[in-house]
């Protein structure tokens, strides 16, 4: 796979040298994500989305500018250490734009390393475009100028979720259930404080964190939900910790509602099966959004890759990068970063803005629930997402503690 | 030397579960004495050595060394009081060279301790002692061969060497000549005689020629008890011993 990429890149470079007619400037984008091992599915899915997004960006904002984006892949196996080595390799390869999304631990390591590198070697600066790591710290206390986040952070998602909760008067008791690590803790903090602030009548009947990936049998927890009388479960769980939870609920006949962050993943839904109907997700995208361009892209992507179109932030990040390059009239990271900071782009889902104070994207957010009879459904299960709530981008902004330590 | 005996076993008992290996063993070994322990297979001779050197805890009775109680001490503490031993089944440091085996054997008593701040080669006396021992064992030519690759007789020689290289005052040898040829046995006996000069020696041996040649005194162990103890002549004439040693061994006794 990567070999083909390298060969293709070399070939493209060769072509660029030979034909004076198409001497486009190649701007290299490096995707640092897991490409082998247990998490490679996520990395591969990301790769497909970025190939797709770069194609759209090259045909869109960059058409006729004499510049085009080109993707190179770096395998980090979600290890922070290996990511740093791959960052070095990417810099050697002349990559100026790093994209990464899997693992907040990797995101912290990369954000920090990019900041140090840019300080030490300003003439070889790189930008770090984060498309999926959602720890709020990255755009608050640990923010830095060279990091841009395109996904909504976990607090923003929780905010959107509570916006939705406010409209659901039939829910009375929530149980906050998370995995025991930094992200789970962040979701838990956000859930408890925001529910209290915004729907004081809603009672938090339980708060719990479970060891990550260690629990095989979730029925005791379901029994606890039941004992506490919870009718709503808010959870940031993902992977087996989410699918096993929902499955155990179905096994034991528990009827409460699951509000989640990561239900959209194909493995989780196919594992849960039809029992997942009614469970909801909060995010910046779902594939049944009724908008012509989205419909067209979703179909095109599914046809080409036989995979679920879901990483919308790959599209927004590449489009915004292209727009910033156009606006700056340069492909150098510094002017591009200045152009990107505060930039607004009219996305198919409405205007989206890269907030200047903390480099956090403000964009429309959605709550969607698994339902039958949808146009785009999961492969093994006749369920697809149906939108049940939308929050406009401007309403998602939250107070930030970010003070860029290294703003140019 | 009228003080306490070098080694005193007072009513030593050992049970493995329900099996009584040693029932009531009383042995006195005077300082400077060469004392042999004989007895049929399974009489408990090796177990007795294990008791004395702290390999297994005793089930009852006391063991003392020069009047000092060593009954519940660990093997290394007993060694530090001057008791060294060899094993019936060869027990060497197989991947270390012959020379290194001997050097490890002498380390404790040449003051190297657990030192990590000094190179081993810096301990002159230690090296000299090991070289001297090599010479004595006739293993100089095999100096750098890993112990595990030695011929059997050489391994047995090194086994004895490991017991005596540290210069202990009381030496326990468990069948030192087992499996040796006549010639090798003679060499080994000469060696044992030489190194046990001025020391206390306790030896378990099946070769009665060796026993009667070396020992000042003999204790006969049978079925977990000492059935006779005395000079070779006393033991030779003891009727209980004769009845315990029916068959081949009895002929040697006569």
């Amino acid at each position, binding site marked *: 796979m990567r070999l083909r990429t390298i060969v293709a890149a070399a070939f493209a470079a060769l072509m660029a040298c030979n034909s004076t007619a198409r001497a486009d400037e190649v701007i290299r984008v490096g995707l640092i994500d897991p490409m082998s091992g247990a998490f490679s599915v996520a990395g591969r899915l990301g790769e497909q989305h970025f190939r797709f997004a770069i194609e759209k960006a090259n045909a869109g904002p960059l058409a006729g500018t004499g510049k085009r984006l080109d993707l190179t892949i770096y395998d980090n196996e979600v290890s922070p250490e290996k990511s740093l080595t791959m960052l070095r390799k990417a810099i050697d390869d002349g990559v100026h734009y790093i994209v990464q999304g899997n693992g907040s631990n990797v995101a912290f390591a990369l954000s920090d390393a990019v900041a140090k590198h840019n300080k030490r070697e300003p003439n070889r600066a790189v930008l770090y475009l984060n498309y999926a790591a959602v720890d709020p710290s990255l755009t608050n206390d640990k923010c830095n100028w060279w990091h841009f986040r395109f996904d909504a952070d976990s607090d923003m998602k929780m905010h959107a979720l509570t916006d939705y909760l406010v409209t659901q008067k039939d829910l009375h008791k929530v149980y906050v259930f998370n995995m025991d690590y930094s992200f789970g803790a962040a979701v838990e903090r956000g859930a408890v404080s925001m529910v209290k602030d915004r729907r004081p009548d809603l009672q938090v009947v339980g708060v719990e964190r*479970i*060891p990550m990936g260690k629990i*095989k*049998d979730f*029925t*005791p927890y379901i029994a*606890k939900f039941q004992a506490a009388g919870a009718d709503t479960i808010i959870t940031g769980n993902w992977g*087996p910790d989410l699918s096993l939870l929902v499955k155990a609920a179905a096994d*034991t006949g528990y009827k409460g509602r699951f509000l989640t962050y990561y239900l959209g993943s194909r493995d989780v839904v196919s594992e849960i099966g039809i029992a997942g109907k009614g469970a909801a997700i909060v995010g910046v995208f779902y594939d049944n959004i009724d908008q012509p361009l989205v419909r067209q892209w979703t179909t095109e992507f599914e046809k080409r890759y036989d995979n679920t179109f879901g990483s919308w932030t790959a599209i927004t990040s590449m489009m915004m990068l292209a727009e910033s390059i156009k606006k700056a009239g340069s492909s150098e990271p510094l002017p591009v970063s200045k152009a990107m900071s505060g930039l607004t782009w009219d996305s198919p889902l409405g205007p989206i803005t890269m907030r200047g104070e903390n480099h956090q994207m403000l964009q429309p957010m959605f709550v969607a629930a698994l339902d039958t009879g949808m146009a785009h459904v999961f492969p093994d299960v006749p369920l697809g997402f149906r939108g049940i709530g939308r929050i406009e981008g401007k309403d998602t902004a939250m107070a930030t503690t970010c003070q860029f330590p290294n703003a140019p | 030397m009228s003080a306490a005996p070098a080694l005193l076993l007072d009513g030593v008992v050992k049970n493995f579960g329900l099996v009584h290996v040693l029932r009531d063993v009383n042995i006195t070994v005077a300082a400077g004495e060469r004392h042999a322990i004989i007895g049929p297979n399974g009489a408990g001779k090796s177990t007795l050595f294990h008791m004395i050197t702290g390999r297994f805890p005793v089930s009852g009775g006391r063991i003392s060394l020069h009047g000092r109680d060593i009954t519940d001490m660990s093997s290394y503490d007993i060694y530090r009081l001057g008791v060294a031993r060899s094993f019936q089944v060869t027990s060497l440091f197989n991947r270390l060279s012959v020379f290194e085996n001997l050097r490890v054997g002498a380390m404790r008593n040449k003051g190297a301790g657990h030192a990590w701040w000094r190179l081993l080669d810096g301990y002159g006396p230690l090296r000299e002692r090991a070289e001297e021992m090599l010479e004595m064992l006739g293993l100089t030519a095999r100096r750098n061969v890993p112990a595990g690759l030695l011929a059997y007789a050489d391994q047995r020689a090194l086994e004895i060497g490991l017991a005596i290289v540290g210069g202990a005052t009381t030496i326990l040898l468990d069948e030192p000549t087992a499996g040796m040829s006549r010639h090798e046995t003679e060499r080994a006996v000469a060696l044992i005689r030489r190194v046990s000069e001025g020391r206390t020696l306790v030896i378990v041996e099946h070769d009665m020629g060796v026993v009667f040649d070396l020992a000042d005194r003999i204790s006969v162990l049978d079925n977990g008890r000492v059935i006779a103890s005395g000079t070779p002549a006393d033991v030779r004439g003891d009727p209980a011993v004769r009845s315990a040693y029916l068959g081949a061994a009895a002929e040697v006794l006569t």
Partner: protein
Amino acid sequence: MDQLLLILLNGLVYGLLLFMLSSGLTLIVGMMGVLNFAHASFYMLGAYVAFSISTLMNFWVALIVAPLVVGALGALVEQYGLRAVHKHGHLAELLFTFGLAMIIGEVIQLIWGRWPVAYRVPESLDFPLFSIGGTAYPAYRMFMMGVSLFMFVVLYATLARTRLGLVVRAALTHPDMVAMLGHNVPRVFTMVFAGGCALAGLAGVIAGNAYQTDPGMALALGAIVFAVVVMGGLGSISGALIASLIIGLVQTVSIGLDMKLSTALGRIGLHVDGITALSDVWDISINRAAPVVPFLLLVIILAINPRGLAGSRSS
């Protein structure tokens, strides 16, 4: 009270499952001295093979056939791999199984993909059996318990009543003697290894659909199975049973305790809130600490007695 009953039931099911994995491993470790790092991989293999068989035919065929397939693979591994490595010592054997675990993990992903597979509980068992305090108890859990107990009885009978069992028991306590008695030790080894793998496979068959069949399932259980085997004492079936049940129950029961450590210590008269430097520690609730418990137990038990709870020999 209802919840306690539920927790106990679940702990029992989990503990028995652990036992199914660890009984095979403890025989392998006890008899052959092989720290088989690939044991949990055979468990995973069992689940995947059962998934394939149950899609082609049905679950009941898989229940019988999949453990046999896994056992046969185990026999091949022993015969053509481990035996050749044996002469290089235990470390080499351990490393061999280490490499084997890596390969099994990758090959499984190559054949069945990196996603979890949709290995489902058979419909005939997919119903709530009874209800405790409003929580339905799935019939399949009871089935799991039944299979585990049945397996335990069969294993026990095999060890107690058959000639093979006699040789195995003798080999556990007196490894040198059995060879001298003229038994074909290599063949016994092959059978024990294959049997252990088959047991692991069976555990995979019945757990893969109750929980989840994914490429990470071996990793999640690998360390804990070792903890059970060592805690119980190498080569001790009864020790493994006790340790499995302890770990199963401790892990499940501690889920129910969301008391903070400082509160718990306060109950027994230790007031630690003042020591703020360790406030991170005191704030840990007991249920969050559950995964550490088996390993802490292991360390404590081994520190007290390196032979484990009921070990017949230490190394």
